């Protein structure tokens, strides 16, 4: 079966996951994002590329940053943006997901940006649109369950390439709650596809998926050992709701072992960069001195995220 993200010509028509996406498509998104980074520096922070198109943000799960950056990206492309907070609308009246989608297509939606707590929801919508012959309508996964968050993965890749130029000689460490992290999963797939020789995941046994090695990564439970000589350190948010599941003794204990401090960062390469997808918990997974330090590229990640999402929306709309 054809990759549901690609159309008959092999062009990207939906962005659902980085898993199985060819390297040239990932590189094309990263390359296209570069010229979009300068749009924010201009007098008119807008280009007319998606003028007259309607982008629907369908957020079945809360998110401020991702929804806002998608909204800014679409607006800077001159698209019309409609935000639907589905949690409090039709679905609570009993409408099914696909009925909601069909109604929005009847309102001439051109693109859906979907965030859902259920893994696979964006895929279901894309498959439905393909089946109904709505090939002009595109779906972007803005995070589904524990599965994938491809635009976050792409902006992480963009940030790494911006500072490190080439993936083929890098060691990247991903630290923390990998088990529940769709961000980690997407980034690992992207790094592997682009030929990163060493990707490490660092965390306690309770927060690493059992078969994590099958993704082609090295596993470390000792952070000092895992962070040694890394070029890039990606910290993941410790989702506080995990504490209730008795996966961890306490946040203080977690910070002691897996929190990024200046002292632990000193074990990485001297020019290593520190990333975090946000929102971050200061003093839980990262020390303020590091988060605000000169090696931190956490805020540039947010800025690059807009350019990367502009690239994704415009490539999909042009397919």
């Amino acid at each position: 079966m054809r990759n549901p993200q690609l159309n008959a010509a092999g062009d990207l028509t939906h962005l659902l996951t980085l898993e199985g996406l060819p390297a040239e498509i990932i590189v094309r998104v990263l390359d296209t994002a570069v010229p979009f980074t300068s749009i924010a520096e201009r007098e008119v922070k807008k280009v007319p590329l998606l003028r007259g198109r309607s982008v629907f943000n369908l957020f079945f799960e809360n998110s401020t940053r991702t929804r806002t950056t998608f909204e800014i990206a679409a607006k800077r492309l001159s698209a019309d943006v409609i935000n639907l907070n589905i949690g409090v609308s039709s679905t609570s009246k009993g409408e099914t997901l696909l009925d909601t989608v069909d109604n929005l297509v009847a309102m001439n939606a051109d693109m859906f940006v979907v965030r859902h707590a259920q893994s696979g929801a964006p895929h279901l919508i894309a498959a439905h649109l393909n089946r109904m012959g709505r090939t002009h309508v595109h779906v972007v996964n803005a995070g589904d369950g524990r599965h994938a968050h491809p635009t976050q993965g792409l902006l992480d890749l963009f940030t790494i390439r911006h500072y490190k130029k080439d993936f083929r000689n890098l060691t990247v460490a991903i630290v923390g709650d990998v088990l529940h992290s769709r961000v980690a999963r997407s980034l690992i797939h992207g790094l592997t596809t682009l030929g990163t020789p060493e990707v490490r995941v660092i965390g306690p046994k309770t927060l690493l998926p059992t078969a994590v090695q099958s993704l082609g990564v090295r596993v470390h439970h000792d952070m000092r050992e895992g962070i040694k000589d890394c070029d890039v350190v990606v910290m993941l948010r410790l989702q506080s709701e995990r504490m209730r599941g008795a996966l961890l003794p306490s946040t203080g204990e977690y910070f002691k072992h897996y929190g990024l401090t200046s002292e632990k960062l000193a074990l990485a390469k001297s020019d290593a960069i520190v990333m975090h997808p946000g929102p971050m918990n200061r003093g839980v997974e990262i020390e303020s001195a590091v988060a605000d330090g000169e090696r931190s590229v956490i805020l540039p990640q947010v800025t690059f995220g807009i350019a990367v999402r502009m690239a994704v929306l415009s490539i999909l709309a042009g397919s």
Partner: protein
Amino acid sequence: MIVRGTQALPLPDAEATLAALIERMRGAIAFDAKFVGIYSGGAWMAERLAQAIPGDHPVGFIDVSFYRDDFSRKGLKPEVKRTELPFEVEGATIVLVDDVLYTGRSVRAAINELFDYGRPATIELAVLIDRGGRELPVEATYVGARLAVARSLSIVLSRGADGLLALGTEASGA
């Protein structure tokens, strides 16, 4: 002369045509005019013109991909360059530079993009080749050479490792 099909076209020498264009522009260009080249041929030319024409001419570059009118038919081209205008556009005297003037659509897109940076005082247009076939009311202020070319051919400017420009043709894609 109209050359049909894909038969070889007697193209003028690019360097000689550029020299002729420079002769026409010399003395006519404001001392502080800013040169803006449209990628990629126009960008190479803008650098050359800025050096050859008397005055102090900052050079900028435009990629018009985000302003094209055929996006919904063709999508985005694979390699989009970054537009860089390292000067104030507001109130500036601008000379837009392109290699080949044909339908006028790229120039329309470039003018629209310039206005998103500010309101220039004047915009002039310098082109190496004017091949006719306009679909919009756009004319060049300075022209290197005029050619009549069959619609089935595209004229392509290339730059060799020695930095010298050369003209060639390709079967037109669209």
